[in-house]
């Protein structure tokens, strides 16, 4: 599904990612944890194709294609989804209209016709329910004036409607109340599929008790310094990152 090899990337001339190695197979759920500023969001932005980040070296394969040869919208259409840590407000653009445009862009790229309005409406209603998104948010402009928690739910709602191959969720659990966290986790669990993979970026083990990861990785200073099973998350919760601060990439 995704294979990251020795990835180095910088922002504003400052190196942030310093040799990231990571492979994600189909149907797998991976989690990345790590201290603030260690480069987790940078990794997600680089994978999604944000042009304010510069890829210095390394290679990323996504479903057999060189990711860095694809512009961001093509990556999205090929099934790469990023749930933003800070979702962006798009005033004036109706949320479900936006999703329809997104969905149809992906369909057009696959040579499929536009989705018919009835199926689209059905899908939107159903998926909004999956993630507990209030119907009124479908008609409002994308994220505009949404509360912090509503924005996060809306990201998962987009994920549920667009049905990507790989979903990177950057701190989707931050700022959610307990019920919202459960709703978001339920949404993700519903979307789990042998053909769909997840990369969860989180600070809290709580999310991982709802969405059980296959692998947990620890990122420190732009490198993945340790990888393990879900028990690694529990260990981090107990002892913090201090023990990893001195570790070099394995």
């Amino acid at each position, binding site marked *: 599904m995704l294979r990251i090899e020795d990835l180095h990337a910088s922002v504003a001339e400052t190196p942030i990612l310093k040799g990231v190695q990571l492979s994600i197979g189909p149907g797998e759920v991976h989690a990345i944890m790590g201290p603030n500023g260690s480069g987790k969001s940078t990794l997600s932005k680089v994978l999604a194709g944000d042009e304010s980040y510069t890829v210095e070296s390394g290679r990323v394969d996504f479903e057999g294609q060189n990711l860095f040869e694809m512009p961001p919208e093509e990556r999205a259409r090929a099934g790469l989804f990023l749930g*933003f840590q800070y979702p962006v407000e*798009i005033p004036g653009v109706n949320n479900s209209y936006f999703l329809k445009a997104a969905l149809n862009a992906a369909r057009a790229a696959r040579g499929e016709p536009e989705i018919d309005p009835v199926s689209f409406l059905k899908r939107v209603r159903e998926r909004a329910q999956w993630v507990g998104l209030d119907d009124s948010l479908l008609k409002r402009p994308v994220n505009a004036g949404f509360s912090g928690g509503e924005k996060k739910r809306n990201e998962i709602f987009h994920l549920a409607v667009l049905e990507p191959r790989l979903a990177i969720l950057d701190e989707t659990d931050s700022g959610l109340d307990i019920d919202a966290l459960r709703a978001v986790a339920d949404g993700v669990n519903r979307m789990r599929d042998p053909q769909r993979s997840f990369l969860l970026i989180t600070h809290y083990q709580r999310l991982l008790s709802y969405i059980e990861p296959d692998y947990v990785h620890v990122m420190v200073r732009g490198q993945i310094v340790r990888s393990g099973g879900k028990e690694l998350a529990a260990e981090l919760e107990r002892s913090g990152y201090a023990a990893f601060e001195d570790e070099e990439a394995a």
Partner: protein
Amino acid sequence: MAADKSDEALEGLAQRGYSAGFYTDIEQEFAPPGLDESTIRFISDKKREPAWMLEWRLEAYRNWLGMTAPQWQKVRFAPIDFQAISYYAAPKRGPASLDEVDPKLLETYAKLGIPLHEQKMLAGVQEQEPAPGTAAGETTKPRVAVDAVFDSVSVTTTFKEELARSGVIFCSISEALRDHPELVRRYIGTVVSRRDNFFAALNSAVFSDGSFVYIPEGVECPMELSTYFRINAGHTGQFERTLIIAERGSSVSYLEGCTAPQRDEHQLHAAVVELIAHEDARIKYSTVQNWYPGDEQGRGGVYNFVTKRGLCAGARSKISWTQVETGSAITWKYPSCVLQGDDSQGEFYSVAVTRGRQQADTGTKMIHIGRNTRSQILSKGVSADDADQTYRGLVKILPSAAGARNYSQCDSMLLSDRCGAHTFPYLDVRHPSAQLEHEATTSRISDEQIFYCKQRGISEEDAVSMIVNGFCKEVFQELPMEFAVEAQKLLEITLENSVG
């Protein structure tokens, strides 16, 4: 004189998303360039006008000679040589009925998507199938009557007979001067006087054609009325004159559209539009202005200098202006409302889009005279490339206007670092009970917004068009439904490759 042959070569100019830029090679008759009293006599004679009209024009001309072009607007252009312009151009084969219209003219309008045959189906409506339950060929869609003005003359007006059955007069102003001179004489120049401003005075002297609408008492006009202005000939000015009168308790919705060929000279379109709404009457006037804007270097394009004003003469009358301005090298217009009747209402909804080297100085004036008069202003300006745009609005509350209210909102969106947007709201309040609210915003489309859209699979171009359309939505909603779709498409074409 035959049409300038070099015009054909201009058809080959880079298209830059302007699909109406073609030229129709048709035999035309011109007034020789230049302006003096004989030019005015020539025009009046061509139109077989009554003698008082000629006198009226000549007086306007004498006024104009003593006036100077306004300098206060925030636009830059070289002085216009009024002696280099031809003030009259008309297709040689003047039609008596549609069957006699030069096929080339029919073709021109067909190419522009304007129906000159009284077809049941409206141009611009996608659906080709009749709605279920209606007989083939019939439709539940509203129909639109069209007055087609080609350079200086109206070539045809559709649905005239059908409209006449409900007492509605819809014809060219030239025709109205012949068939309803008393009505024209009573109203022309009463809202925009012959000395109102430099360009209004010029227009009063040399106006060529435009539309005349009269809605009798209590009549709701049975269909949308529209006028389609086309500048075709080179080196000519177009001087549109439109007059709309809505008698007590009547209502009408009117729309005008405008296009011109691409040329590397500037052309002048100086219009005067007057609206009169009597007691309880409603006039909705919509414009989709798509004059040729000039090329990227600012060569060519139409100077659109327009005086549009509506008089809410009667109590509870309402005039509503909606404009979508995407064309012209320079746009200079302030559709206004004089709210004389008590409880009368004025509205102004505007989308102005400028790019390349386009300049627009546009807005409105709301003059509150009657008691409890209300006005609403909603202006949306979108600028890209090197374009400059100014909103200028005046809200004036006179001492007689107790209980007057105004709400104004002016939003600007900037799509490049080189374009500009300026807002000048003027307030002149002379009654303490007036309630006024003004809001203004300026926004840009951020890189984060574009990236967010791309991350969902939406291309940059689609993202921009979605965001700009969203920005303008409230104004589009004010357009008659059939035209809202057109306006949205026009906006998309206009803004192609406009970010950066």
